[in-house]
C-alpha cells in the first residue's frame, strides 16, 4: 500500500446512524474510503469502525479532528503501520479444473491459506493476513482465473509492549 493509505480506528457509540455520520465527513471532502470494517466491541454499547482511506496526511489530520468532534465518537486514533498489526480476510474462488489444481494447493500451502470448498471446475480459498500479503496472494492466483472475490477490509491493533 502506498503512503497515501492511512488506517483510522474509531470507537463509537453503538447507535443508529453513527456510521453515516462518520462516512459523511469523508464524503463531504471527496475522500474515498478504501476499506471499512465495523463490529461491536466487548461492550455492546460501543462499536469499532476501522477504515483505510486514500488521502494525504495533512487533510486527514483535519478529518480526524472533525471526526473526534462527532458526539457519538468516543475515541479515535490513527494506526501507525510501523507499530501496528493489521489483518484482512479474503475469500476467493478460482476457476481451475481438477487436473490443474496442484499449483493452487501449493500456493495455498505457501500462504497458509485454507481451501474451503472445491467444485467441478473451481476452488474456494480463504486467507487472513496483512493487506499487502492478501494483495500478493490475490495477484498470484489471478493467472488461474478469479471468478469471485470478497475482502473484509482491514482491522488492526497496536503492537504489544515487549
Amino acid at each position: 500500500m502506498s503512503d497515501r493509505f492511512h488506517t483510522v480506528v474509531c470507537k463509537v457509540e453503538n447507535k443508529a446512524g453513527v456510521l453515516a455520520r462518520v462516512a459523511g465527513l469523508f464524503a463531504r471532502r471527496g475522500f474515498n474510503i478504501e476499506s471499512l470494517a465495523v463490529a461491536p466491541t466487548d461492550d455492546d454499547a460501543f462499536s469499532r469502525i476501522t477504515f483505510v482511506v486514500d488521502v494525504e496526511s495533512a487533510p486527514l489530520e483535519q478529518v480526524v479532528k472533525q471526526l473526534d468532534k462527532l458526539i457519538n465518537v468516543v475515541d479515535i486514533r490513527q494506526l501507525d503501520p510501523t507499530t501496528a498489526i493489521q489483518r484482512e480476510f479474503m475469500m476467493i474462488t478460482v476457476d481451475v479444473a481438477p487436473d490443474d489444481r496442484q499449483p493452487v494447493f501449493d500456493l495455498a500451502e505457501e500462504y497458509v491459506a485454507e481451501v474451503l470448498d472445491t467444485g467441478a471446475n473451481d476452488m474456494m480459498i480463504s486467507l487472513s493476513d496483512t493487506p499487502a500479503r492478501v494483495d500478493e496472494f490475490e495477484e498470484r492466483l489471478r493467472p488461474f482465473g478469479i471468478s469471485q472475490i470478497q475482502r473484509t477490509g482491514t482491522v488492526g491493533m497496536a503492537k504489544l509492549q515487549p
Partner: protein
Amino acid sequence: MTNGGDALIRSLELEGVEIMFGLPGGAILPVYDPIITSSIRHVLVRHEQGAGHMAQGYAHATGKPGVAIVTSGPAATNMVTPLLDAYMDSVPMVCITGQVAYSAIGTDAFQEADTTGITMSATKHNFLVSDAADIPQTIHEAFHIATTGRPGPVLVDLPKNIVNPADPSSHFEWVEPTAPDLPGYNPTVEPDLDLIREAAAMISAAKRPVLYAGGGILKARGADALRELAELVGIPVVTTLMARGALPDSHELNLGMPGMHGNYTAVMSMQEADLLVALGSRFDDRVTGKLDGFAPDAKIIHVDIDPAELGKVRRADIGIQADVRLAMEALISAIGSTNQADRSAWRSHLSGYQEKFPLVYEDSAPGDALKPQFVLERLRDGSPEDTIVTSGVGQHQMWASQHWNFEHPYTWINSGGLGTMGFSIPAAIGAKAGMPDRTVWAVDGDGCFQMTAQELVTASMERIPIKVALLNNGYLGMVKQWQEMFYDERYSEVYLSPDLPDYKMWAEAMGCHAIRVESPEEVDAAIAEANEVNDRPVVVEFRTDPREKVFPMVAAGATNSELMVDPSQTDKLPGGGH
C-alpha cells in the same frame, strides 16, 4: 402516566425555556396542544426559516439557547438554512421537528423528510427519538450539547406516534432526566498552564503584536477579560465581524474590523504584525484574504475551544484548546507585571495609519441621492448607545459593521459564516423578544428585505416592535459592486427596482408604521419619528445611491496587502496605490 407531547413541553420548561418560535403542522400537532397551557411563550412565525433566525437572534442577544419548533418535511427543510447559519456562527439553538410515525419512516409518507440525514452536516448533533420515554433525557442532552463546548444547533426529530396521546406508544411513566450520558462528548475548557506560560512569554516579548478577537469571545462571555488583557499588555485589538462589540469601538486599543471590508489600519496591523494572538477566531477566508500573503511575519498563538480549529487554516506556534475567557484570564495572571516589550513605535505607527486612512465616503452634493453610510451614521447618532443592530448580508451589512460604534457586547447580530440574506428581520424579532427594553434596529437591504419581510406580520401580531432601516438602492448591491469592478460593468441580473414593490405600502399592509426618506434633510426627522414608535414595528425606507460601493476592499484572490481604499485616499497609499 404522561405522554410524549406533554413530556416534551415539560422538558423544555425544565430547561428554563421562556420563548420558542415556530409554526405547527400535521406531525407536530399533538405537541401544540399542551403549548396552550404551558408557561412558554410561543411566537407564531410566517415561514419556518423565520423561526430559526428568530431563535438565533434571541440566542445572540440573551446568551440563552434559542428554541424553534416546526413540523416535518418541508418545515424541516425550511429550517436547514438557519441551522447551518447557527452552526457556522456557533449559536446555541435547539430545534424540535415533527416526523411521521416511526413505522411510516422510509415509506415516502406525506410530509416525510429524512430530517436527521439532511441536517447531519448542518447541526452540531441531531437525534431521532424512537421511544417516548427517551424524550426527557434527549431534550436535556440536546440543551447540554447546544450550550457547552463550542455552542451550536441541535435538532431533535420526534415521530408523531410518540407524542400523540391517542397512540399507546406515546404513554410512559415520567422520569426526571439525569446527567447527560455522552461518553464521546467532553469539551476541554481549562487551558494547559504550561502553554499559557509559553504564550505569556511570547506576548510579552512581541514588538508588533495584535490581538485578533473573534466571535468566540462573545460566546464565552469574555468581553471583560479581553479588555483587561488588552489594557494589561497595551496591545491593539482587531474585532472581527463576529466580534464587533467585544471591545468598545471607542477604546483606544480597538482598531476595528479586519478583513475583506475591514478598515485600513486593522487590516495592515495584521499584515505587519510579528505576533497574532487569535482569541476565539478561526482565520476565516474573509479575514485572511489570500492565505499565502496573510500576516507573513507573524507568529501565531491560537486559542479556541474547538481543537479542530487549531491549525485548520494557519499553523499555530502555540495552540491552546480552551474556553477563551478562561484562557484570557489565565494569560492575565501569567503575564501579571512581566515587563512588556516597548511597543510605543508600533502603536504610533498604527495611529499614523488611522489618521491617514480613516473610513470615508463622499458626502452627497445638494440634490444628490442619499448616501447609505450617511444614513447609518445618523441612525447610530440618533439611537440609544445600547441599541441592538441586526443585519442581512451584503453592502448594508458591511456599512453597518463599519459605521456603527459598538460600545457593548451583544449589540451586533449578523450572519457571518453562512452569509444568509434575509437574516436581519427575523433575527431582530428574536433579539427584541429576548430584550424587550432595548431598541432593536434591523439594518436591511432591499434584496434581503424581500426574502423574509413577511415576518414583520409576525412582529405586528406578536407586538414585538422592531425597527427596520431599509437601505433601498434597487439593486443586489454587493453583486453589482463585483460586476462593476471585476466583470467590466456588465450587470447581470442585479437590478431589483427601487419602486417595485412599494415598500411603504407593503410595510403598512403588514401592520408597520412606515416612512419613506429620499433626501438627506429628511433623515434625522425620520429616525427620531421611528425611535418614538413603540407599539408596532417601524420600517424606514431610505432611497440610497446605487452607485455607492463598499471600501476598503480586498478583491477575491488578492492578499490583504493589496487592500483597495476609498478612491479619495488612493494617492496616500505607499507607492501611490494599487
